[in-house]
């Protein structure tokens, strides 16, 4: 499956798609608002309520959709390149669930109330534990299914511990939150959350993008990559910390959103000639587009139901996963 399209065109199309979806995301909600009205004729031309809703509710929501989607897409593509496994993805590997656990611990120990950045930091530590564990496992056995099953176990364990933490809380609403932490949502987030997540996601993305060339070399196996001067330790560290930073911070504000890192790289891989280095930036844009689209869908399909984002991404992602699993099994049996 190869489709010929110049890389620069692909990136331009993806940027345009992200911008379009970003604009729609700002416009859609309880009432359709045209953000251009506000831009064109100044804040005075729209009502104060519209202005407040655009700037303080919809804009941060769209920005979060963009950066969190990009973080998930980029880390999915990096993990796949690093583990040379098309099934690797922060959600499936338990990294998102572990980040959720970290976030919940920060909130319900009161740490995040004392120090706001404790929330993303604790979440990224949760993610870090998961990636390190996984990398250690993958180092011993490169078997794809072993890694996936470890991810399943890790997800269940982190989910159970999250639930336990919420149950232990004196907050009567805590127990109901498990849905948010397991399926994710961007509803009614604010600039506070953007400020909390953005620095970590930016730093994480820089680290992840720095692995690009090494991932290309790794397509030929570890020995060849090393013989071509690739420093595998450095690559591993970049990928581990990059994933922990970006997925940790993203999960801290949005909850765990699965399958973005699986679906997006898979869809884009044939469009970039399967080159991991080209896949990384494309997956960041694709992830942003995918999550913005999912967030538009939750508001468009069931506007009053507060549908969780993870529901949409799983509905799209799970069939992909089964199909990929089937293909991978066929390939490994040969």
């Amino acid at each position: 499956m190869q489709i010929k399209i110049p890389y620069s065109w692909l990136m331009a199309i993806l940027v345009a798609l992200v911008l379009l979806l970003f604009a729609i995301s700002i416009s859609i909600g309880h009432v359709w608002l045209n953000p251009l009205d506000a831009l064109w004729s100044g804040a005075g031309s729209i009502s104060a309520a519209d202005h407040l809703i655009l700037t303080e509710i919809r804009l941060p929501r769209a920005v979060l959709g963009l950066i969190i989607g990009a973080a998930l897409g980029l880390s999915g593509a990096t993990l796949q390149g690093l583990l040379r496994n098309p099934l690797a993805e922060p959600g499936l590997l338990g990294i998102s669930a572990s980040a959720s656990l970290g976030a919940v611990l920060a909130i319900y120990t009161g740490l995040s109330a004392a120090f706001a950045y404790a929330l993303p930091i604790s979440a990224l530590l949760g993610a870090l534990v998961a990636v390190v564990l996984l990398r250690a496992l993958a180092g011993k056995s490169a078997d794809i299914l072993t890694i996936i099953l470890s991810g399943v176990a890790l997800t269940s364990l982190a989910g159970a511990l999250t639930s336990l933490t919420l149950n232990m809380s004196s907050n009567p609403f805590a127990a109901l939150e498990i849905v948010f932490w397991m399926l994710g949502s961007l509803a009614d987030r604010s600039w506070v959350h953007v400020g909390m997540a953005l620095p970590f996601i930016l730093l994480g993305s820089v680290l992840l993008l720095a692995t690009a060339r090494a991932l290309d070399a790794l397509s030929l196996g570890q020995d060849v990559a090393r013989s071509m001067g690739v420093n595998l330790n450095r690559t591993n560290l970049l990928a581990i910390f990059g994933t922990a930073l970006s997925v940790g911070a993203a999960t801290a504000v949005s909850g765990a959103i699965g399958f973005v890192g699986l679906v997006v790289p898979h869809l884009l891989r044939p469009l970039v000639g399967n080159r991991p280095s080209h896949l990384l930036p494309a997956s960041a844009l694709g992830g942003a587009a995918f999550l913005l689209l999912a967030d538009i869908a939750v508001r468009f399909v069931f506007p009053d139901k507060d549908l969780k984002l993870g529901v949409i991404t799983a509905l799209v992602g799970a069939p992909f996963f089964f199909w990929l699993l089937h293909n991978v099994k066929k390939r490994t049996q040969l």
Partner: protein
Amino acid sequence: MLPDWGVANQPKAPQRVVSMNLCTDQLALLVAAPGQLISVSYLAAEASSSLMAKEAAQLHTNRGLAEQIIRLQPDLVLAGQYTSRASVNLLRRLGVNVQTFAPAYRFADISAHLAKIGTLLGQEARANALIAQLDTALAEPNQHTHRSAPVLGSYGANSYTTGQSSLESEVVKAAGFRHLGTELALQGASKLPLEQLIYASPDRLMTWKSWSQYTGRATEILLHPALDRWFPKERRVAVDSRYWMCGTPFTVEAINQLKTQMESHADHAD
């Protein structure tokens, strides 16, 4: 005047009454004779949720699990209609007399619940006295709400507000205001996204005092900058949720407190 205690000693009256629900806890504490009620839910003993925590703390407290209840050998169990459903069903299968109470949706439900508990406990006289007091308090003027009256809306954890045909709407209207959930024709507890709340723009936003002590995702919405901007201090009313959670004689206090708070706010505005 309190009724004669002798009534409780009639052979029919249950002597080991257990309540499993915060609302029936408080009603039973008001109606039962000393010693008649042997256990209430643990929430009844917590000052953050109960208005009778002191009284409840004297009794055994339960967590609504069938095993725990059955060991108390109750001859009557009072439970909420929607709480601990599995436990209630199990208790009934084990032959325990369980009486369930729907949440109070109207003032009339409070009287009905008091009367029902009075009959079940053989304390009709005490129940009737409480009902009479309640009727007097609620019969006071100001029962009609102006069309121009300010709109008051509640907003709580996870962006929930309360719809029409609820005790909250009754209380708000009794205090002389229009009720947001009723104006929007919402049903029951309803999720109201922040931007919808801003569009609806009630004159006053009512939040629950006790919830501000909790940190967490669910209550984070109450700290949203847009909420602060649209509903600055002078448009907020923070009320004590203990008076609003259950339909009890204390509901009268909810009305009075709301009136007082709104008046003092109005004074500030002048």
